[in-house]
Structures are given as structure tokens and as C-alpha cells.
């Protein structure tokens, strides 16, 4: 016990000096790579292409654009939903592009870039189940990915519901598909692919639980780097390149059939719980 406390004290001492040292933007340029943390299991944002086994997707293309503007290589590092903020804070990755919704609690830990997606968080239930409003699920069992913002929304909106969290979104979905839970909370967009793949029938509870703004996450107090990423996002917005990336993964040609409902240069803001339709 003693040795452990001692090592912790050492750890704490290093923590205070280690992270705030050099300017991150310079570090990245000197290193020549931008390390981008992505989920790797969230189609179409970042997922392993079955053919090449490489990680591809919307998040990856955005990271690539940022790396291109910096004139460095991009390296995608797979991280779990709940590891997104710790990995970033501890400096293992430079930026998080991983379905990271804005919440005030998270904004105390990290800085957000301007928006890169706006998502509706909804409850998914099995077709034929009796649940059709948010309140009808008040005492039910709901699955969510561990450490996700969705998990928090459920706790706020349905405090009586019992929440089961899983390592990744597909596992949480599998629990619903196997009827181990009554509903799953997830962003509308992530659900599409799951539903398409199972061939079983699911439906959404129509009213969204929350509307949230996704930003890319960077470490606190790295103004130069944050500015640089926002410049890239603005450039993507103005040049139409951003729209092209959006359309490639989420547009009319894809199963999601979306048209870009947001601008890359709007600042992220608080999630709206139970937004009106």
C-alpha cells in the first residue's frame, strides 16, 4: 500500500508538469503525425472496412483533412466510447473524432471544436412492443454504450429506468435484439445500420430524448491547435468539401439519405433534452 501511495505521489507530480509543457501544435508538426482517436466500431463514422480491414469513415476523412492542412500524416487509433476523454487528457491521442456530443461536464475536461455533426438521440424498441412514448419506458431496462452521453440523457430523462451499459454500441444493440432490454438509446444514425443488418423489425419512440451537437475534442489550453482545427472546419464548410465528405458517408446515395443539417463553423452548444419535433 505504501509503495503504491508513493508511486501515486510521483505520478501526480509528473502529471502536473508533463501535460502542459510544449505547444501541442508544434509537437504534432515535429512528430509529423496527427493521432486521431476514433471508435472503429461505429459505421459510417469509423469502422473497419471488411475488405481491407482498414478503418474508414466520416470521422476518418475529417481527421485526414485536418492532418492535410497541418501537412502531417494521419494515424487513426481505435478507442472505446468511455476511453475517449481519458485518452485525450492523458495525451495518448491528439484529437477525438468519435461521436462526441457536447455536454457541460465534458467541456470542463476538454475543449470542443465547432460542430461536426448534430444528432438526435432516440430510444429504439422492438416492433410490436407496447412502448410508444418516452414516459412509457419509465421503469424499463435500457441499454447504452458505456461512458456515452446517451447514457446520461437516460439518467436525466428517465431516472427510474434501469440502465445496462456495454463496451461498444453493437453489444448494446445485441442486448436489445436478444430482448434482454426493452429499449436502447442511440443516435438515430447509428441505428440505421443495425436495423438494416438484423432484418428484424425495430422502431423508434418518436420523440427524441435529446438533440446534441458533436464536436471534435482537443486538450484544454491548446489554443493554437484548437484554432488550427477550427480553421480547417471553416475551410471545409466554405469550400463545399465538407458537404462532399458528408454526402459520401451519410448523403442521399447512402442508406442514411441525409442532407447536411448543420454548418461546420457553428459553435457547439448544450444538448436539448426532449426536443420538440
Amino acid at each position, binding site marked *: 500500500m505504501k509503495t503504491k501511495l508513493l508511486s501515486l505521489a510521483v*505520478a501526480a507530480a509528473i502529471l*502536473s508538469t508533463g501535460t502542459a509543457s510544449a505547444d501541442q501544435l508544434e509537437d504534432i508538426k515535429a512528430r509529423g503525425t496527427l493521432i486521431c482517436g476514433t471508435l472503429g466500431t461505429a459505421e459510417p463514422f469509423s469502422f473497419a472496412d471488411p475488405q481491407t480491414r482498414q478503418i474508414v469513415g466520416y470521422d476518418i476523412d475529417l481527421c485526414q483533412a485536418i492532418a492535410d492542412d497541418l501537412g502531417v500524416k494521419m494515424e487513426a487509433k481505435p478507442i472505446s466510447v*468511455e476511453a475517449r476523454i*481519458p485518452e485525450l487528457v492523458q495525451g495518448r491521442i491528439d484529437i477525438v473524432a468519435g461521436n462526441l456530443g457536447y455536454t457541460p461536464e465534458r467541456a470542463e475536461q476538454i475543449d470542443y471544436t465547432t460542430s461536426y455533426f448534430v444528432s438526435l438521440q432516440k430510444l429504439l424498441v422492438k416492433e410490436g412492443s407496447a412502448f410508444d412514448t418516452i414516459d412509457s419506458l419509465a421503469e424499463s431496462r435500457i441499454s447504452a454504450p458505456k*461512458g456515452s452521453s446517451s447514457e446520461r440523457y437516460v439518467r436525466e430523462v428517465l431516472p427510474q429506468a434501469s440502465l445496462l451499459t456495454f463496451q461498444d454500441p453493437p453489444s448494446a444493440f445485441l442486448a436489445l435484439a*436478444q430482448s434482454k432490454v426493452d429499449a436502447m438509446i442511440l443516435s438515430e444514425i447509428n441505428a440505421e445500420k443495425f436495423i438494416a443488418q438484423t432484418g428484424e423489425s425495430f422502431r423508434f419512440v418518436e420523440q427524441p430524448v435529446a438533440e446534441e451537437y458533436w464536436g471534435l475534442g482537443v486538450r484544454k489550453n491548446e489554443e493554437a491547435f484548437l484554432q488550427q482545427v477550427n480553421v480547417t472546419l471553416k475551410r471545409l464548410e466554405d469550400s463545399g468539401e465538407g458537404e462532399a465528405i458528408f454526402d459520401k458517408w451519410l448523403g442521399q446515395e447512402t442508406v442514411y439519405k441525409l442532407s447536411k443539417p448543420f454548418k461546420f463553423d457553428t459553435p457547439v452548444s448544450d444538448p436539448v433534452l426532449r426536443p420538440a419535433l
Partner: protein
Amino acid sequence: MGYEFDFSSVLTDQYIDWLISGVRITLLLTAGAWIIAFVIAVVLAVLRATNFRPAVWLVAVFVEVHQNIPLLVQVLFWYFAMPELLPEAWRDWLVRNNSEFILAMIAIAMCTAAYMSEALRSGLRAVPVTQYEAGRSFGFNYLQTMSYIVVPQALRLSVPPMVNHSLLLFKNTSIAMAIGVHELTYQTRQIDSDTFRTFEVFLVATGLYLVLSFIIMFVGNLIERRFSMGTR
């Protein structure tokens, strides 16, 4: 600047509640799995001692399968795959009754049973054959000899490894977190992702695990001493 330890943001009423319920589930899981594991282990050890070929062979397969697959994989298998193989009615019952807890308990129990049965087997082998013969010459039948004379002695000889496997069982309940059982490790990570006070919450959780482990070790030691005095 320095890393400021801030236990107060971890030890609020709400989070203490979470930790307590985590400890409760961990202990329930440990107790439930231990009882199941012990019963299965005794049955397996006795079956193996019968020298009836198919039984011996079946027990050996059970033991090898459970000892050579990671427990996490066994837990994932029981949770995600096994219910698919069950009849509809059973599956419905499971779903209505905290399937993650029950399935984690079964998975951990089966795995521990394999190890415990081996511990009992070496205990059984260490009981001199003359003890068995003496039992039979008293007019006891096989089952009576086993349950009144041989098994109690074997149990005594197996106490140290049994204590060890009980401790491992307790520690292994943390793996149930992977399928969403709200035990101590699960609650710890939940508090961590709520407060971001990683060091504080993990220090508290580690402390809780250590205290409980030391209690198990201490009680185990007492039992060991008691039984070893009895034999000498």
C-alpha cells in the same frame, strides 16, 4: 500546480450509494457462484472417483474445457450465445429476471467448479484406500462410504486450494462487468466516467477489493489452521 486529490467529489451520497450497491452485487455474485461451484465440484469429483469410464471421461472434458478457455470468453459466451440455444420459455424467464446477473453467476460458477473439482480430486486421492475399505467392511454401501468417510476427509485435505479458488472466484466476479452486471468494478467505472476523478475512485475501489480479499484470506487461514490441527 500538482494533481489535487479530491475525494470529496467521489464520495458524495450518490456515489457512495453506487459503491455500496456495487459491493453488495459483488458479494452476492461471489456467494451464489461459490455455492453452485461447490455443489458441482463435489459431484464432479465423486463421479471421477467412480472409475466408471464414460463418467470419468465426461468429467475430464468438463474440466479441460473450463480450464483452457478464458473466463471472459466463457462469460461472453454464456451471455450472448447461450440464451440463443435455450428454449423460448427459458429465455423469456431469464430476460425477466436479470439475465446478466444469473448468466454471469453460472459462467463463473462452472469455471470455478472445474478448478475446485480438481482440488477435491487430489484430496480424494490422498485419502488412503484403507479408509474406503474400512467403511465398506462396516457394511456401508458405496454412497454411504463416500459421503460419511471419504469425502469429509478429502474436503479437509483440499482446504488450502479451495480457499485459494474461493479468493480467485471473488476477484473474478469483476469480469461480470463486461456484460453489464452492476458490480463493484462496473460502478467504479461509472463513477469515473461521471466525475473524471479517475485516481480517487480507483483508489477507493482497489481499497475495497483489498479489504474484502484480506478478509477472505484471513478466514481461509483460520479454517486451514483449524482443519490441519484436527488431522494431527
